[in-house]
């Protein structure tokens, strides 16, 4: 794998893929990817459309199973684990399109996510609203995302930007270790996108984040490590400065946009 500049070797990888391949028929959407996501970094994955970013993401979250290769999380092989298992292990993902529980209230959306980490979900005789720790977690997440005043509104009736925030809040309420964020600013107004990006910058201080994002200035500002994909393979990996200076990347991708 061609490396450019210094990748941050200080921390151990929390997520690691080896020779990861996903074929759809004859087409290899992901074609032999070795990825090391180090703890505490904000690791951006960029590349032209069709480079295989979202497929790679789905392999990381467990939504798809690889054709071959492996995925390890915190030194445990999770290749055969599904999305639910990986969520419970601490891999929280958000979706490219807004993916909330539309007819439930904002609070119920995050409360459910917090509840998923407890053992009470099969309790049919207790009151859902009486679960102190779960409610507190839900309220804390809403507070953090500035959604507390919207807590009793129906989620599907929120403005688009607030729905994206809620989507993130749901993922955070599950108390993940690693966040997978798939184009979080997609479809947002420039103002909302900027606000969301700042929010992600704040989250990066507490979580390891893997981010797919098209907004280049944003990626360059936030990322500690950038992996550039092209045709299902890793074209380059390095710090934002190193990627900016990389000729192959410029030719394949940045050049067209800059």
């Amino acid at each position, binding site marked *: 794998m061609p490396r450019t500049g210094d990748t941050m070797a200080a921390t151990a990888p929390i997520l690691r893929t080896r020779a990861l391949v996903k074929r759809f028929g004859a087409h290899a959407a992901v074609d032999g990817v070795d990825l090391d996501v180090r703890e505490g970094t904000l690791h951006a994955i960029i590349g032209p459309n069709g480079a295989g970013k979202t497929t790679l993401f789905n392999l990381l*979250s467990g*939504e798809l199973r690889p054709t071959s290769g492996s995925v390890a999380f915190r030194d445990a092989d999770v290749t055969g684990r*599904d*999305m*639910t298992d990986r*969520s*419970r292990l601490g891999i*929280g*993902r958000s*979706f490219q399109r807004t*993916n*909330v*529980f*539309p*007819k*439930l209230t904002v609070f*119920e959306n995050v*409360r*459910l*996510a917090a*509840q*998923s*980490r*407890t053992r*009470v*979900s*099969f*309790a*049919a*005789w*207790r*009151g*859902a*609203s009486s*679960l102190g720790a*779960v409610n507190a977690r839900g309220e804390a997440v809403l507070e953090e995302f500035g959604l507390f005043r919207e807590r009793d509104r*129906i989620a*599907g009736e929120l403005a688009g930007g607030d729905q994206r925030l809620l989507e993130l809040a*749901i*993922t955070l*309420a*599950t108390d993940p270790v690693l966040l997978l964020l798939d184009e979080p600013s997609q479809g947002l107004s420039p103002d909302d996108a900027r606000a969301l990006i700042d929010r992600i910058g704040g989250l990066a201080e507490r979580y390891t984040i893997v981010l797919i994002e098209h907004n280049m200035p944003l990626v360059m500002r936030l990322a500690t490590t950038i992996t550039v994909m092209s045709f299902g393979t890793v074209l380059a990996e390095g710090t934002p400065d190193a990627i900016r200076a990389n000729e192959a990347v410029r030719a394949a991708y940045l050049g067209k946009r800059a």
Partner: protein
Amino acid sequence: MIRFAALVAVVALAPLVVHYPELETQILTFGLLAMSFSLLLGEMGFLSFGQATFNGVGAYAAARVLIDAHAALPLALLVAMLAGAGVAAAIGALASGGRGVYGVMLTFAFNEMAYYAAFQWRDVTGGDNGLRGIPRPDIFGIALDDATRYYYVVAVVVLLAFAAVLRLNASPFGAVLRAIRENEERARSIGFRVARFKVAAFAVSGALAGLAGGLYAELYRFVPLQAIDLDTSTNVVVAALLGGAGSPYGALLGAAIFTVLSDSLSHVWSHWPLIFGIVFCVVVLFFRGGLWSVFDRRSARAAHG
């Protein structure tokens, strides 16, 4: 709480106002069956076209232990619930994985299989003659030899089941079912093992439907083959949607209207389902949350979004 108190009052006073305890008992047992349906549709978003399967299994199971083992009534009803829950869990495990209409068709197909099994297995079910001669034992030393006394036994059981459903809907478990209804993929991605919750919901639904069957078996001390046929499953769907599948109140209201109309209209005109069909169309077209939505804005919103 006020609404539940009002329901208790209505159920307690009904036979005193209109003395027709057989019909009123039928409303309650059918209402319980409709509630078992609306738990799956209203909370979890799964349309079951096979509730008569669990109803029939419960009815036959209760009848058999009453006839063969001279079991006490509470024990017979417990057996009915367990039988209904077991069969529903098995069918739910197979049907609830099917997306959209395939799951519906599977509940339908299993119902048809259960019907033919009951039809063939005459030694146990009486086949198309029905199962006769079910004893009605005393309960806590009280003879249940008249229809009104039996009505009150059924009333207590159904109201307890009703309260349990209200409790379940407000519980963490009920919240997960609504999450599955709203967005199954997201429920999975935040770590809920969706398949297990679906099977559990089916088991609860089957227990309620089995209990309804057991109570029904004792009403005329007879289990007709209709207890397990597809017409009954269809009637459950119609009654629950008529009243409003978003809440157990709606299911009970729909069952009451359906039972009263079918009882009164069938005496007048043998083609009464035509009239009922028109009523049903009007309700579905103009009151999408069912008739209960007129009283209850929350269930209306749940149905409309």
